[in-house]
């Protein structure tokens, strides 16, 4: 085991080394081109454009002309066109490399459980950076802010906001906003001034930094990074309130930080002397305009998206793409209007999720979710790797011990002070106060990340002479928080015994009661005659239901939208999936007849899904357990393979041989579907084409089989006839308000009379059997293949020769007897006039009231 793992790791590392070598070759070959590649996901197509518009540092110098058409003497068969594809190629290569890094990190879970993945990625980034440095003697690749802010960040934020637990977010919005706005301002101001004070005090020698620049630095370093926070907290599983507080705060405070940064940046450009009261007021006003303007723009885009998804039904394939593009546009538009882009895309994602999930097809929702996850995880990986790579650069490192250490110290200390103070204020009015350990983790979770680095890299060297010191310090703060705090976070959470997220199953009763509690609280507030939280919630819900949903949701989506019902639906889906996978675990056919498997959860599923169809059975189901014991005691089933025996294990043992036989037979006689060969490529549809001919064919065969069976029964070959008749009567009699059409024919003829006293239990057992049989047949794969009745297999002959007793009829489908039940469906494949015969068989069946119930069973398939 261990050896295997090691081997695979070794093999992988070899490949990885190969790839790195390849990379180095490439990077050295383009040494002339000083190109900084961050990456892109949207970027490949227009990478020529983007690289042209990129930073001034991106200069594609003389060498680009190298591929200009020169005079050729002869026709070249192939040519080396590196310069044509250089940029996209490098981008793609880097993406690949970064993702492979992630793969390496995830190879061993023992490591990731100690060091968070983000930290590992940074460390791998160091190694990569070292390799590049060794090859190029200069850092040719690093994370440049433009790429980061336009191509890497948006999808992360969009993903985070789209997957945000909405209710939790909005119910804690007050606390989140206070932390994000006041907390960030507090951090920026205090870190800035404290550093400045220390500088004045002579703690860091002589630096060319003014007080405003210190404040600017304080602003950029106060950005708690959502990327880092998610990466660490996802592995820790803290309780949901704590999670949403940290996460929501980090998401929103990025926006706030960028705004603050811009304000201070403008102040720095303005110069200390020109700043007067009016300018400061303007700065504050601009802060609010930018922040709230961005949020508002996001909401506008959310409305646009929701309305758009109302009408995208016909282009379902690209439905999901609309959300991504419009989300990205909301980001860019905000950027264009110099509003807060991060806040814009955040609110866009948070606000539209509910409506688009209702409007879009379920498949599109899944697509969207996965696409966003791929993009977000992908760029997150790249960000961390490049945070590592960027560090290996001699040029950016200006060391100033005092500045760096003091920055780390102040960042941590003021974060703690801010969080504790704000939480104390919040706890005065919170229903459930945030307890002290949670507060500690909140403060400790203030990880700095790529946003801070991006902002630092954006600094203008002309205005801020000490840019490199700030950049380097930011990187160190990032490493300190992401790696050190990241590593210690998990032990800390365990040691402090922070409440973890309760891993609870979704339960209908909980949801139901939550609904009830809401009503109760609203009512009590009314009785107390005060306007409280629940009054607002209810008011909003009503408004939302009446107007917003009307505007943003499809009428159809509005109708089946009741939350409780959708939960119910979801639970049922889950059960169904479990049920099927349980079946597959046991081999599909074995499952459908195995009592053990059915026992697992059957009652639950059965009860919930078919309760409305068969109320009587439901009642019987309650006696189910009782029936079992009773049954195994009664020795009706003593002889072989009893279908009603619930003594599972015994039966299994007895059945083993028969099982093998039957399985073999079935495999030989299954209807071989030809569907697989008919996959048609379609640009816009995934579905396997439903071939009508095939359906037709199955239909004809089945109809024909009925006729055959009719013949055989008429000639008295089938001894089951009488029994069946008898039993059907009994059943219909027993279930006066069951739907005869829907239920009656679900009972196979093997339902025997002998066990009248136990009817309840037996019925349920049979129900189960035959129901799944029906389901099996619905799948054409399970139709027995058609061999002509004259060539009936030996086991059929055998049973007929023996002329089995009534008891033998009551066997599992596994047994030859049960298979015989399927036998009548076998017909000659060469028949052409099956339709005619099918009609005949139908009418005949109606006329004579005897019924081969198992054949009627087939009917739903064609309805």
């Amino acid at each position: 085991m261990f050896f295997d793992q090691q081997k695979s790791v070794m093999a992988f590392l070899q490949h990885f080394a190969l790839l790195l070598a390849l990379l180095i070759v490439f990077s050295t070959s383009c040494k002339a081109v000083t190109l900084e590649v961050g990456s892109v996901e949207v970027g490949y197509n227009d990478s020529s454009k983007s690289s042209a518009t990129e930073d001034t540092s991106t200069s594609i110098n003389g060498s680009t002309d190298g591929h200009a058409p020169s005079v050729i003497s002869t026709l070249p068969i192939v040519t080396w066109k590196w310069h044509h594809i250089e940029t996209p190629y490098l981008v793609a290569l880097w993406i690949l490399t970064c993702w492979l890094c992630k793969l390496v990190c995830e190879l061993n879970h023992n490591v990731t459980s100690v060091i968070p993945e983000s930290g590992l990625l940074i460390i791998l980034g160091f190694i990569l950076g070292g390799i590049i440095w060794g090859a190029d003697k200069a850092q040719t690749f690093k994370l440049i802010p433009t790429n980061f802010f336009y191509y890497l960040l948006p999808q992360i934020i969009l993903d985070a906001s789209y997957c945000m637990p909405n209710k939790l977010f909005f119910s804690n919005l007050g606390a989140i906003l206070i932390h994000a706005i006041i907390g960030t301002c507090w951090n920026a101001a205090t870190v800035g001034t404290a550093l400045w004070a220390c500088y004045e005090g002579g703690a860091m020698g002589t630096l060319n930094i003014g007080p405003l620049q210190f404040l600017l630095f304080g602003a950029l370093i106060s950005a708690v990074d959502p990327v880092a926070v998610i990466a660490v907290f996802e592995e820790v599983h803290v309780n949901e309130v704590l999670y949403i507080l940290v996460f929501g705060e980090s998401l929103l405070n990025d926006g706030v930080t960028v705004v603050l940064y811009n304000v201070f940046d403008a102040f720095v450009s303005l110069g200390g002397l020109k700043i007067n009261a009016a300018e400061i007021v303007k700065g504050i006003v601009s802060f609010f305009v930018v922040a709230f303007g961005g949020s508002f723009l996001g909401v506008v885009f959310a409305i646009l998206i929701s309305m758009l998804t109302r009408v995208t039904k016909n282009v379902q394939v690209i439905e999901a793409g609309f959300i991504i593009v419009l989300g990205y546009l909301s980001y860019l538009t905000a950027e264009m209007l110099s509003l807060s882009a991060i806040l814009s895309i955040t609110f866009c994602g948070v606000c539209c999720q509910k409506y688009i999930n209702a409007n879009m097809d379920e498949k599109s929702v899944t697509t969207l979710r996965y696409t966003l996850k791929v993009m977000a995880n992908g760029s997150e990986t790249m960000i961390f790797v490049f945070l590592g790579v960027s560090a290996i650069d001699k040029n950016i490192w200006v060391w100033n011990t005092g500045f760096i250490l003091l920055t780390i110290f102040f960042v941590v200390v003021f974060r703690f002070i801010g969080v504790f103070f704000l939480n104390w204020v919040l706890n005065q009015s919170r229903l459930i106060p945030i307890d002290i350990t949670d507060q500690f983790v909140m403060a400790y979770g203030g990880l700095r990340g790529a946003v801070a680095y991006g902002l630092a890299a954006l600094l203008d060297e002309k205005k801020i002479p000490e840019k490199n010191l700030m950049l380097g310090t930011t990187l160190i703060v990032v490493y300190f928080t992401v790696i050190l705090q990241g590593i210690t976070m998990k032990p800390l959470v365990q040691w402090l015994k922070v409440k973890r997220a309760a891993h609870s199953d979704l339960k209908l009763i909980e949801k139901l009661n939550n609904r009830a509690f809401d009503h109760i609280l609203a009512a009590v507030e009314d009785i107390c005659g005060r306007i409280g939280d629940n009054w607002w919630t209810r008011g909003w819900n009503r408004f939302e239901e009446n107007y917003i949903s009307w505007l943003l949701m499809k009428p159809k989506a509005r109708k089946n939208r009741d939350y409780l019902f959708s939960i119910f639906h979801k639970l049922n889906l889950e059960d169904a999936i479990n049920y099927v996978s349980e079946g597959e675990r046991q081999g599909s056919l074995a499952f459908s007849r195995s009592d053990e498997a059915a026992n697992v959860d059957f009652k639950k599923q059965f009860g919930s899904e078919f309760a409305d169809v068969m109320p009587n059975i439901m009642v019987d189901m309650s006696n189910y357990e009782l029936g079992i014991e009773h049954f195994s005691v009664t020795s009706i089933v003593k002889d072989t393979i009893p279908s009603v025996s619930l003594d599972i294990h015994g039966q299994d043992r007895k059945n083993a041989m028969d099982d093998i036989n039957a399985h073999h037979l079935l495999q030989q006689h299954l209807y071989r579907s030809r569907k697989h060969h008919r996959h048609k490529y379609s640009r816009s549809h995934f579905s396997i084409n439903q071939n009508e001919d095939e359906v037709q064919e199955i239909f004809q065969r089945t109809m024909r089989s009925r006729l055959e069976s009719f013949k055989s029964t008429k000639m008295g070959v089938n001894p089951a006839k009488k029994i069946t008749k008898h039993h059907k009567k009994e059943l219909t009699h027993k279930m006066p308000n069951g739907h005869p059409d829907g239920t009656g024919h679900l009972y196979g003829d093997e339902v025997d009379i002998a066990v009248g006293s136990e009817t309840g239990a037996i019925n349920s057992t049979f129900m189960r059997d035959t129901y799944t049989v029906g389901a099996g047949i619905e799948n054409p794969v399970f139709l027995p293949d058609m061999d002509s009745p004259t060539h009936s297999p030996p086991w059929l002959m055998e049973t007929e020769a023996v002329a089995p007793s009534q008891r033998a009829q009551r066997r599992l489908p596994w047994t030859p007897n049960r298979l015989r039940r399927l036998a009548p469906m076998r017909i000659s494949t060469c028949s052409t006039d099956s339709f005619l015969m099918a009609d005949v068989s139908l009418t005949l069946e109606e006329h004579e009231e005897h019924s081969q119930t198992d054949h009627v069973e087939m009917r739903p398939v064609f309805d």
Partner: protein
Amino acid sequence: MGSTSSTLLKIPNVEVLMQETGFSPAHIIRLHDRFKALDKEGRGHLCPQDFGAIKELAMNPIGDRIIGAFFSPGKETVDFHTFVKILAHFRPVDKDRPKEPNSPEPINSRSNKLKFAFQLYDQDKDGKISRDELLKVLRSMLGMQVTEEQLESIADRTIQEADLDRDEAISFEEFRKSLEKVNIDHKMSIRFLR
């Protein structure tokens, strides 16, 4: 605060009431004002019609059940003491207050909150939520959007989830167990009653 104490003095046994419910004098006064406002005819007690007069409450899908919870069986009226005691269920749990081992369980304890919710379902007071009782609540809460069959299957599923002894009904014990993971202190508390 002369007016405060004078209002308090008008209420009989106010000390006992505060002891039992944990409300502060300010809360008691506020609730007393509200009580008087609801009691339009000044009889000193409330009857169901008084509650029915609250407009919002009439729109509440389970409003009548909540009104019913104020009246103990066989009684047509509710006096101020009972009124406050019922509302005390919704006082948030205070963690700071030292626990006295001998004191009786406070009204706003978790299990008392749950009991309050439970009796809203259990209208026939047999200690069990039967399928019919659950269906009635579901019907009023889910309303138009769901068909009767769907309602029934939801009810069945809900009962199955909670029903441990397979008697097709939810006893209080089962009710409590099924909601073990729900933060009742949070869900059944009102902030301004703190």
